[in-house]
């Protein structure tokens, strides 16, 4: 179902991909082309629990103060609530920094994971450029923004000068057509894609999603696409905003920042960018969504992809639903759907990606369903995703997770195994005690 269209590149040089337009805007140029080194002034510079370490580096510079404090965005999310006094001290230092520098976009523990929160708060949006001290910074591309991950020292340099050099990447276009089958999600699509193209399938490249298949995808499902492209080595991943994007932005802004919602939305409408029809893509792939089946990333790499049917019955000891990849309302709803009226045979930890999601999941009754089934609910944040705390694994344990990485040691223990799947598969597998298609668990019930 994946067709490689090969190299196109016949369009006029003035026709630009979405990423090229975004980088032209943030570097103050009318046009850019792949290979150009441009100096960009990002609209947003993201950091999280690593902010204190960046501040230490920043203090080696003679600049004294952050050049554009209004462009910084800081969330406390990676180890929240702090598991040790050392982590608490780290947070305390970050608060001190944020207060001292007058950082307005500062989000306390429990608000949620940086990538989710910055979208919900409308800090990032169509047409903007975000550079972040986090490898999943491409996430915000689902709103039509440019997002790329950079290191701590580069962030310190950005705080000082407000600008950074980037190489304009070649763009890979992935055109989606048709509709996903029931029980299949964009998580399955990305695992499939990364399995086919490998963990370096898009290294140094921009990924642009296009095609009529996108219009049928919910906001929650779209964010998985751009988020997971980090696992294919992409510099950034994006798609053009459409009515689904605008409706979501409006609703989120009205909740998060009611006073400024209108003004912020107008700003996004002015800055929004769209790819040119004749833009030059270095590589084209086409995927018929209808042909995708549930997929699993097996230990210990994301590109070790298998159809669920090939690894069914693999024993699992526990499950984790959460993270910036699959900790949104739709993900929690799909788990609640499966667990309603059932008892878990295995431990299941559910951590909503943000407080807004936790609130919605509570109001919808999903949290009750999960608790009644025996699940554990955690504080919005990254949880055990990178092995810091709150659900790390024991030696020999096998975890089925909705996260984006299953590297050895990722969840804190090198002698553990992590499988990645969509949240419904995680929930169903925790009912069965082994990897299983959700339909088997639900069918069993009705039979």
């Amino acid at each position, binding site marked *: 179902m994946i067709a490689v269209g090969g190299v196109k590149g016949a369009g006029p040089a003035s026709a630009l991909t979405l990423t090229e337009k975004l980088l032209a805007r943030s570097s103050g140029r009318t046009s850019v082309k792949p290979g150009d080194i441009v100096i960009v002034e990002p609209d947003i510079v993201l950091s999280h629990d690593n902010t204190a370490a960046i501040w230490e580096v920043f203090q080696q510079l003679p600049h004294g103060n952050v050049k554009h404090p209004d462009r910084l965005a800081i969330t406390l999310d990676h180890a929240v609530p702090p598991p040790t006094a050392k982590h608490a001290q780290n947070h305390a230092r970050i608060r001190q920094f944020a207060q001292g520098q007058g950082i307005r976009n500062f989000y306390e523990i429990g608000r949620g994971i940086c990538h989710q929160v910055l979208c919900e708060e409308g800090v990032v949006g169509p047409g903007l450029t975000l550079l972040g001290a986090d490898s999943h910074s491409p996430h915000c591309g689902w709103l039509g923004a440019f997002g790329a991950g950079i290191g701590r020292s580069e962030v310190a340099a950005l705080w000082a000068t407000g600008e950074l050099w980037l190489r304009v990447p070649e763009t890979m276009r992935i055109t989606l057509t048709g509709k996903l089958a029931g029980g299949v999600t964009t998580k399955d699509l990305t695992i499939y894609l990364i399995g086919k193209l490998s963990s*370096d399938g898009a290294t140094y490249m921009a990924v642009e999603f296009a095609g009529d298949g996108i219009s049928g995808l919910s906001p929650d499902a779209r964010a998985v696409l751009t988020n997971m492209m980090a696992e294919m080595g992409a510099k950034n991943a994006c798609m053009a905003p459409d009515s689904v994007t605008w409706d979501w932005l409006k609703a989120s802004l009205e909740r998060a920042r009611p006073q400024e919602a209108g003004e912020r939305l107008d700003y996004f409408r002015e800055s929004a960018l769209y790819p040119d029809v004749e833009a030059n893509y270095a590589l084209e792939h086409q995927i018929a969504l209808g042909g995708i089946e549930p997929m699993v990333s097996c230990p210990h790499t994301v590109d070790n992809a298998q159809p669920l049917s090939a690894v069914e019955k693999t024993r699992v000891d526990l499950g984790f639903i959460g993270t910036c990849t699959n900790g949104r309302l739709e993900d929690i709803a799909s788990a609640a759907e499966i667990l309603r009226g059932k008892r878990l045979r295995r431990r299941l930890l559910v951590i909503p990606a943000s407080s807004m999601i936790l609130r919605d999941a509570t109001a919808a009754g999903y949290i009750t369903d999960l608790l009644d089934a025996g699940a554990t609910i955690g504080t919005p944040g990254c949880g055990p995703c990178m092995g810091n705390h709150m659900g790390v694994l024991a030696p020999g344990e096998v975890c089925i997770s909705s996260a984006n990485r299953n590297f050895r040691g990722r969840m804190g223990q090198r002698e553990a195994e992590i499988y990645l799947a969509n949240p419904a598969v995680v929930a169903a597998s925790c009912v069965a005690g082994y990897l299983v298609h959700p339909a088997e668990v639900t069918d069993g019930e009705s039979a």
Partner: protein
Amino acid sequence: MTTSSHRVWKYGDKVNTDVIFPGKYTYTISRDPAALARHALEDLDPTFAANVGTGDVIVAGRNWGNGSSREQAVTCLLAAGVHAVIASSFARIYYRNAINSGLLVIECPQIVAAVKTGDRIEIDLAETRIIAAGRSYDFAPLPDQVLDILEAGGIIPWLRTKALRHGE
């Protein structure tokens, strides 16, 4: 004389940042060189940290350093005394982090199959080549801007010198 001689540690394809420097330490160990060095390659090669010597190099396959943006995956190697990482290819954030922290990174796919752990190789930066077992392997020169940063010891010393020079 720009040639330097180094002992090789050889690894495979797709080595990710979590096995280079585990995520669980990222908010408690940031700059202490001894602590960084102690955990270098902890989940890839438990013998590495105790046996690595100053000036050693890592030679690896495709996509070295994929995964997280954590800079400790670079600085733990510097703290352990590693002189350079030579690989078939690098993940892009790792590549930037290496330059920005002053760790020499060289893309040279041809040499990877030719060396194994314990071999000695010579790196000739001026001539952009590596010599192993009497054979020479060329690599592409780094762009000037990148070389500037590398030679300054990373982006922070580079920027500091620049800022002080311009009296910013």
